[in-house]
């Protein structure tokens, strides 16, 4: 009995020890899993270096520069840290420079086509990311003859000298997610970034690229309206360049040199309320593309004559009414509102070296108003002159040559001119009689 009891106690202890062991094993497994998961998470979210082809083995070296046969300073160096923190930081080099196989690289293998898709997935659809839709819109725009493919470092000079329309790279470069100018603002807003996010997301690249990508949303969009205008003004404020532009005549279909209205478009815009608001950093003003490419990928600038253009006469009311701007513009009673000329060259002083006496200035509303007001101005001018030279100036008071008695009497409370004249003549008669009497007495 005692023996069986002893055995059962031993068995119970053995079972208990077994449970303890199993529990320890479970804890061990749990801890191992936790450690593994923890470390693997850190590793997964650590630096991401998209250089599967080893391009940075050479291109990360600084000073890989030379001067080509045209005298253009060329550089094969890519600042690795900048690149990884840039807009294209996730894109492997060969996604753009597709045909590179050999060294030295053949020029034709380096060419970039901006409409190609790359190996980065567009997050919402999971499709390969591409600029092809933007390029399509750009190609159908007024700038569509610009270069969007065949881009190399070596043909920048050719493009600068020959291409009339801006290419993709003319306006866009591989910038940082957070521009230099905004960096202090960003650092001040997210000074805790390193200690908070950096516990798991380690490395400069994460901070520069992914951290930047997410957190810059908190400090506003990457380009503001003034940035857009600066981009347009890079060409459109250049009178010399604009004077070389040839535009197709809507009626004759022939190319003609652009007129003063086109050449001075940037200047005339700058005189409008829109331009002046933005100049003073008041973002309620409309930028160039707010009117010329308000929808889509904002690359589809079209000629005013094109019925699809946002600036076509039939679409102007919608364009002005967009984004809660001039909502009343669509009301039939306000249809004249859209007739306001935003690019009225008469707003530009005639001393401007571009077309100071251009006939188109005569069509301006300012000139029409002047013609209507000129006769009145002339009449008033003559009247003023007469008043000045012929008016009664006695006692330091000037009276109108004709009329004005009621005004003098009721509004100013002065004796009217007629009464003064009468009073004066009566006084002179009395004075004359007194003088005569005095003479007679003598």
């Amino acid at each position, binding site marked *: 009995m005692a023996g069986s009891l002893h055995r059962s106690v031993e068995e119970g202890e053995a079972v208990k020890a077994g449970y303890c062991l199993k529990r320890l094993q479970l804890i061990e497994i749990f801890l191992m899993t936790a450690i593994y998961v923890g470390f693997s998470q850190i590793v997964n979210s650590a630096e991401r270096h998209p250089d599967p082809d080893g391009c940075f083995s050479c291109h990360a070296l600084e000073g890989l520069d*030379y001067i080509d046969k045209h005298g253009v300073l060329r550089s094969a160096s890519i600042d690795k*840290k900048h*690149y990884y923190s840039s807009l294209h930081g996730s894109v492997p080099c060969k996604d753009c420079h597709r045909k590179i196989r050999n060294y030295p690289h053949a020029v034709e293998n380096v060419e970039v086509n901006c409409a190609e898709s790359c190996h980065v997935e567009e997050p919402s659809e999971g499709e390969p990311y591409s600029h092809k839709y933007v390029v399509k819109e750009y190609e159908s725009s007024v700038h569509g003859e610009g270069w969007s493919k065949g881009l190399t470092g070596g043909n920048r000079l050719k493009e600068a000298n020959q291409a009339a329309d801006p290419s993709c790279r003319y306006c866009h470069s591989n910038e940082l997610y957070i521009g230099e100018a905004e960096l202090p603002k960003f650092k001040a807003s997210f000074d805790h970034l390193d200690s908070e996010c*950096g516990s798991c997301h*380690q490395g400069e690249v994460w901070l520069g690229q992914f951290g930047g990508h997410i957190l810059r949303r908190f400090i506003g969009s990457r380009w503001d309206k003034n940035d857009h205008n600066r981009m347009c003004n890079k060409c459109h404020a250049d009178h010399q360049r604009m004077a070389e532009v040839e535009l197709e005549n809507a009626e004759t279909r022939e190319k003609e040199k652009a007129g003063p209205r086109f050449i001075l478009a940037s200047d005339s815009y700058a005189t409008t309320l829109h331009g002046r608001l933005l100049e003073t950093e008041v973002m309620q003003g409309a930028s160039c593309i707010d009117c010329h490419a308000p929808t889509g990928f904002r690359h589809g600038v079209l000629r005013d004559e094109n019925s699809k253009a946002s600036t076509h006469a039939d679409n102007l009311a919608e364009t002005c009414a967009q984004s809660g701007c001039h909502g009343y513009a669509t009301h039939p009673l306000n249809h004249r509102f859209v007739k306001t000329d935003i690019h009225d060259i008469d707003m530009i002083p005639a001393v401007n070296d571009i077309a100071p006496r251009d006939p188109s200035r005569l069509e301006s509303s300012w000139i029409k108003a002047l013609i209507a007001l000129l006769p009145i101005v002339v009449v008033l001018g003559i009247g003023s002159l007469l008043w000045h030279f012929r008016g009664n100036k006695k006692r330091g008071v000037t009276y109108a040559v004709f009329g004005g008695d009621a005004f003098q009497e009721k509004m100013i409370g002065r004796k009217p001119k007629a009464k003064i004249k009468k009073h004066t003549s009566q006084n002179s008669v009395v004075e004359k009689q007194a003088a005569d009497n005095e003479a007679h007495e003598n």
Partner: protein
Amino acid sequence: MVLGCLLCSFIQAGPLYLAQVKRADVNNKVLQKALAQVKERKDIEVLDNLAVMPFHKRGVLQVTEKLAFCMNCHLPLPHRKNKRNRTFLNMHSLYIACETCHFRPKGIALDYRWLAYSGADAGQVLSPRSSSIRDPSHAVGKNRIVADSVVNDKNGMPKRERKNKIEKRQLLAPLPGARIAPFYDGVPVLLFKEDDFALTTKQVWVDGSEQARAELKAKLHLPLEKAGPACKNCHRKDQPMFDLHRLGATPQRLKAMQNNTIVRFFTRFKKDESRIRLNKLLR
């Protein structure tokens, strides 16, 4: 004749290169070749800041206070023709003097040291940096101002970057713009652009006829070698051209230079014009 008189006045205890120029015996063949080159020569205007800017962020071309005598005629990035190595050679010209590669007189042992091209010590010999961890502001690449979104600590060092990584990335130069230059008897063998001889030579070139220019060119180039040493002459363990360790390379840095992947890749090229598949870079 003009050049002869010119040399006599400058040769007193001058650099070795000058002495070699004086001794140079230009034969007719060399002179004719020089004359042809003078006739073909076209001044090149360096174009930068084009309306179409480079797509990728680019650094600023390094300019030192002192310029090599060669820069009287040659561009600041002198290597232009060989597509394979021109950029790499220009990169080396940022920390190696022209004369180190192109002035290698036979039978004369030269000593290689750091020479300052900028700052208060410009023209002076510099001691190699002894510390294995260097102030990053002294890296040669610092001239390339790069704005980034990296958080730096109070010393301006990127946070969390490991010390050995910094060390590996940095170049050896003890000061920005310093170059490894050849010395003979403790004196630099080279000349600077603003030296009296260089200025006078320039005037001779400007005033001289094509024939006089050709004579000058031939004389100045005779002590020089057109082709520099092969990559392997420096990037190797056994008897490299100069003692990199003595010039301040840490063991880690030295190993990286001796086993350089790009140098190994370049040894595969048998002809200048040949192209090699990039995947061989990894083998």
